[in-house]
């Protein structure tokens, strides 16, 4: 054994000694240009784009054999993180048994004429180069809100959780600057990927005619510039490899909380304004302050919780920069205004409560009381909720269309606002108010209307093709069936049983504790119901993307 031991030490040492560099000659120690440059010269355009033109990827499908080296090379040559590549490759297939069709489709950013990522970005972290047309993401400007990942119809920008930002393809701008082909183009063994110059007008025209790539989402939203070429007839029934994968999407918990709580907050203000305008009995100053305080707290909470959604929350203050184009910036702007208005209203209300003298109050008070602070708060609140809904409407995803999203969000205001308001009133033993019963009835009716809208999505189950809405419906009726049942039960108790019981105990003039019990139950159940709905809102939406492999 002793000789084996000696040998063991020898081989362990040998195993950890690297000598390849010394032993073999260095072939390119003095090379100044990349050895492959000759090979890819023809993959690059000879000149820069002229006015009205831009760079674009050109993919010759007839040359693409499906090796997918482009994806691996993008990752490797750009030094991306594990499982990160700016290119994806999938397949489309179709045809008939006699003439089957199968084709690999490689795609990266399409450097769209009208990039949705750029429009949606609240921090102006995207720019479209005026000369090259390349849509570039500014990594340090990004706060990781991920709105671009919802806006892009091709699933191009990807959130990098460890960095807290989104990253995407910039057509290897740094390589192009030195006449080097992008990583994908220079690594393609069959030269299927190249860079070309397109006339923007042509790209727009092509997109408007719906001509892009089989199995890919519509080009009409953003006008992608990538040119897919093939001499073959691509069968019209060609579908992406993942066409039948109906997958749940990530539910953004902090966004759910932001939406539900901000709408609850606005709802309390709204109900209060309504009662002040149309109610027959007054709300006491104390009650008013408590209502305002609650609305302010919940509104503040919604903002705080939304911060957890950001990859880099410290940059959140930049979120207003995109206000010209981004509904997210507008939401941020509106919620800021809303909170300022509510807090001001609250301060004024609290001032009314104090008994000691406040300096200059006699000057300020007449001015302040003339300002309709509460209606202003409400307007700001409604503006916030409208902006919130437009964030999703703007993605053009069918499930998030305006006719569904706006009613859903506004009905949440009514439902949670009325029951929240009722709960506070009862808690303050203000049980004889004539507005309680109408408020509860409004809540029940809104709840019924809202659930009807929600469940109307199931009608899409009858669609023939696996349309985006049918995918959503399939998830609702399938993987998320349990949630639908839960949501239905919560609605039944939260909108109907507890509210009706509450009306009865109010009319029967039962004790405050009984009233409190039923109002708390109605509130909790409807709040939980709204959370369920908003979870579903994110989870079952169909995410358009470029062709992929089967799961």
């Amino acid at each position: 054994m002793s000789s084996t031991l000696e040998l063991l030490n020898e081989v362990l040492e040998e195993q950890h000694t690297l000598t390849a560099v010394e032993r073999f000659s260095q072939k390119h120690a003095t090379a100044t240009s990349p050895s492959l440059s000759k090979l890819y010269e023809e993959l690059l355009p000879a000149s820069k784009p002229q006015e009205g033109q831009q760079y674009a990827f050109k993919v010759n499908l007839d040359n693409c054999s499906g090796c997918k080296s482009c994806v691996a090379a993008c990752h490797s040559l750009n030094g991306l993180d594990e499982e990160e590549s700016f290119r994806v490759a999938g397949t489309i297939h179709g045809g008939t048994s006699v003439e089957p069709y199968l084709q690999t489709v490689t795609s990266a950013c399409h450097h769209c004429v009208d990039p949705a990522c750029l429009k949606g970005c609240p921090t102006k972290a995207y720019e479209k180069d005026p000369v090259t047309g390349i849509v570039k993401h500014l990594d340090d400007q990004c706060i990781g809100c991920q709105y671009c990942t919802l806006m892009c119809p091709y699933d191009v920008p990807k959130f990098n959780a460890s960095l807290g930002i989104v990253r995407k393809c910039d057509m290897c701008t740094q390589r192009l600057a030195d006449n080097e082909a992008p990583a994908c183009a220079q690594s393609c063994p069959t030269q299927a990927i190249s860079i070309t110059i397109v006339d923007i007008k042509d790209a727009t025209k092509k997109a408007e005619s719906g001509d892009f790539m089989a199995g890919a989402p519509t080009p009409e939203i953003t006008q992608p510039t990538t040119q897919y070429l093939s001499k073959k007839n691509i069968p019209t029934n060609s579908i992406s490899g993942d066409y039948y994968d109906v997958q749940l999407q990530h539910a953004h918990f902090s966004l759910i909380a932001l939406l539900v709580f901000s709408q609850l907050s606005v709802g309390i203000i709204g109900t209060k304004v309504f009662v002040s305008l149309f109610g027959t009995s007054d709300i006491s100053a104390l009650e008013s302050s408590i209502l305002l305080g609650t609305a302010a707290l919940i509104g503040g909470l919604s903002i705080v919780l939304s911060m957890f959604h950001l990859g880099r929350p410290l940059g959140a203050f930049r979120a207003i920069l995109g206000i010209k184009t981004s509904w997210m910036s507008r939401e941020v702007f509106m919620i800021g205004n809303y909170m300022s208005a509510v807090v001001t209203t609250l301060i004024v209300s609290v001032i009314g409560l104090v008994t000691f003298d406040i300096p200059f109050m006699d000057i300020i008070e007449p001015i302040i009381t003339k300002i309709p602070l509460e209606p202003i708060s409400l307007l700001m609140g409604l503006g916030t909720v409208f902006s919130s809904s437009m964030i999703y409407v703007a993605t053009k995803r069918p499930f998030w269309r305006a006719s569904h999203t706006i009613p859903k969000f506004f009905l949440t205001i009514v439902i949670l606002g009325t029951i929240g308001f009722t709960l506070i009133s009862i808690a303050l033993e203000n049980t004889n108010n004539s507005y309680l019963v109408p408020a509860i009835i409004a809540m029940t009716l809104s709840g019924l209307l809202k659930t009807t809208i929600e469940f109307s999505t199931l009608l899409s189950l009858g669609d023939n093709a696996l349309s985006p809405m049918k995918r959503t419906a399939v998830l609702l009726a399938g993987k998320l069936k349990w949630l639908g049942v839960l949501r239905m039960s919560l609605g039944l108790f939260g909108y109907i049983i507890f509210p009706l019981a509450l009306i009865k105990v109010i009319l029967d003039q039962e004790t405050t504790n009984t009233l409190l019990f039923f109002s708390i139950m109605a509130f909790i159940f409807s709040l939980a119901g709204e959370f369920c709905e908003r979870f579903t809102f994110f989870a079952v939406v169909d995410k358009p993307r470029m062709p992929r492999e089967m799961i």
Partner: protein
Amino acid sequence: MKSFISKSFNKLLYRPEGPLTNKLKLTSPGLGLAKTNVHNIPDATTSLICGYCSTGCSLNAHLKDNKLINITPDPDYLVNEGMACPKGWEAMTVLHAKDRATTPYFRNNKGKLKKTTWETAIPLFVSNVKRIQKQYGDDSVAFLSSGQIPTEEMFFLGALAKFGMNMTHGDGNTRLCMATAVVSYKQSFGFDAPPYTYKDLEESDTIILVGSNMCVAHPILWSRVKKNANNPTIICIDPRKTETAMMATHHYSLEPKSDLQLFYAIAHILITKNWIDETFIKNHVNEYDEFKAFITDFSPEEVTKSCGLSEAEIYTIAELIHSGKKVSFWWTMGVNQSHEGVRVAQAIINLALITGNIGKPGTGANSITGQCNAMGSRLFSNTTNLLGGHDFLNSTHRKKVSDILGIDESRIPTENSLAYDQIIENILQGKIKGLWLVATNTAHTFINSTAFKQVRKKLDFLVVQDMYHTTESAEFADLILPAAGWGEKDGTFINSERRIGLQKKVSKAPGQALSDFNIFRLIAQEYCGDDVYNTWSTPEKVFNIMKQLTVGQPCDFSGIEDYKHIDEAGGIQWPFHSNSTVVDQERRLFEDGEFYHADKKAKLIFETPREVFEPTDKNYGYVLLTGRGASSQFHTQTRTNKSGILRMLHSKEIYVEVNPADGKKIGVLPNDWVIVESRRGALKARVDYKYTIKKGQVFIPMHYKETNRLTFPSYDKYSRQPSYKHCAVHLRKVLNQDEGIE
């Protein structure tokens, strides 16, 4: 002041640059490389041959302070000219996997695998082998190795096991992929000699691909086809409409395993129409008259009934072969993994021989190999052949080998090894009690894999030598020896076109992992003590012995000086004998029309086709085809599933491709789970509706461990290669979502 404030404010609001942007900053590192991430700049590069498939691409290892930091394709190597498939691009990632074996493991009394040291593991290995050999005889311990390790390691293993440890039986996983090509070449040409160079792909005007999904299985070879300036006719013969079939100019979707008849029918047409090269046949081919008589039974009218092609289609193929001036035939696993693969391969060889399409640029009957070093294994694994393509049964050969190795001739077995399936069979019969697996994953790959559990039970001692301690086979082992992987050791590979290329140690193996070469040294020391093996201290020394062994053989490469010579030449094809001076970089064989049989003629070999062993019937109504899934998957995925990028490039879950018409018949929708069962086992897979698969057939990629539960253990009777690509299965819908298969 105002501008200062607005400047600061702007700076706060707009951050066009910064640390995150810098993460993706690129710079030119020189060294002939493309721009590279600034955080990953190498100070040197050195090239080495990729360790996956037999194409034998060269990759550049980027080194920084002697640490491997990236890998890119080598622009100067003729084989791949700066290109690589995703496996090559990701070759480094898989070295850093968390489940690398970094120490030996042994199974303790409680049946658990526990970490141990080399000091314990080596004596444990040797004492167990000796114990079993003492009790049951020397031949009761066998080894199964791999086409994934360098030739020098195969050589060491084969020589140590058979001449030092007195084993008789050993085989390699090359049996599962190349045995058919070996036997067919040996019988037809007189030596296992793939005749081509890759340049032939560029020079042909007619390329015929048989049972080869080259686009996916050998993407870089396909890139050579794309470089062909002759606008070649590309004929793909495959039951499925594969990626390659899509790219071909002609696709013929024959019935599975009807290829032998098809090629005989084509020969029938060529001979009847006199579309043959009579002069070549007369001077260089034997058995022509017998062949001519034989194929009269295979008229297109007759064959059309069984092969699924019309007479006109068969005629078209023959016409295309006839009209081509430079016709090359290429085959892969669709032929090799067949119950009569040797005869199918020879039917292809026959077509090349009778039309004179051999020995000239752009021609040949060319088998594309599977593994990176299958060709090395074929010559030097000391399993089927005695070292250097010699014969155990030939006393002159034994004498030659013993002289060069400096060992007593009596140490060389005078009988042949059992083949892979026979070794397994002998384990089941209790004759073989100890098994040593080196760089292979039998529990996954072996046909009818469910039976492996039975095999394990019958074994007294199972050793698995592998990079990872998590392979399906390692989980069954009594002892795991941690091996260094590709890139962590020196040695040579031989690629499909007979090119000897260099592998270099460019990365340190993790923990205590050792190269297979070093493990063999330790075992030799412990088992044999003072012996010839003590002098085999480096792979390069063994390479020198290998060179001497090839003298006088068709594969003579004794003209190669050393590793440096190979490196500087950009790989060297055999033959390269000692008086070779100029390195012609892309050479083909048989340019003089002389073959390796004693009379220098090639032989036409043919035989009546046999029925498949398990035809479909009422209960098992579908033919199961298996094969490559995606270019990012290799074999049992032992390595490829360690890379996140490679995992992104293929389906994550096992799927079965079903023709939509069949899917409807079975009552399954796309993406439904379906149970696929054969008489041997069952698996659960997702249904993939594809028109690319014909009615009555289904396809499952081989990479998923469940696949071989279904396959039928039938073998080509000459090559003993398993017929993975044909068995009868039944499909049924999964009714209960949680229904499992065990």
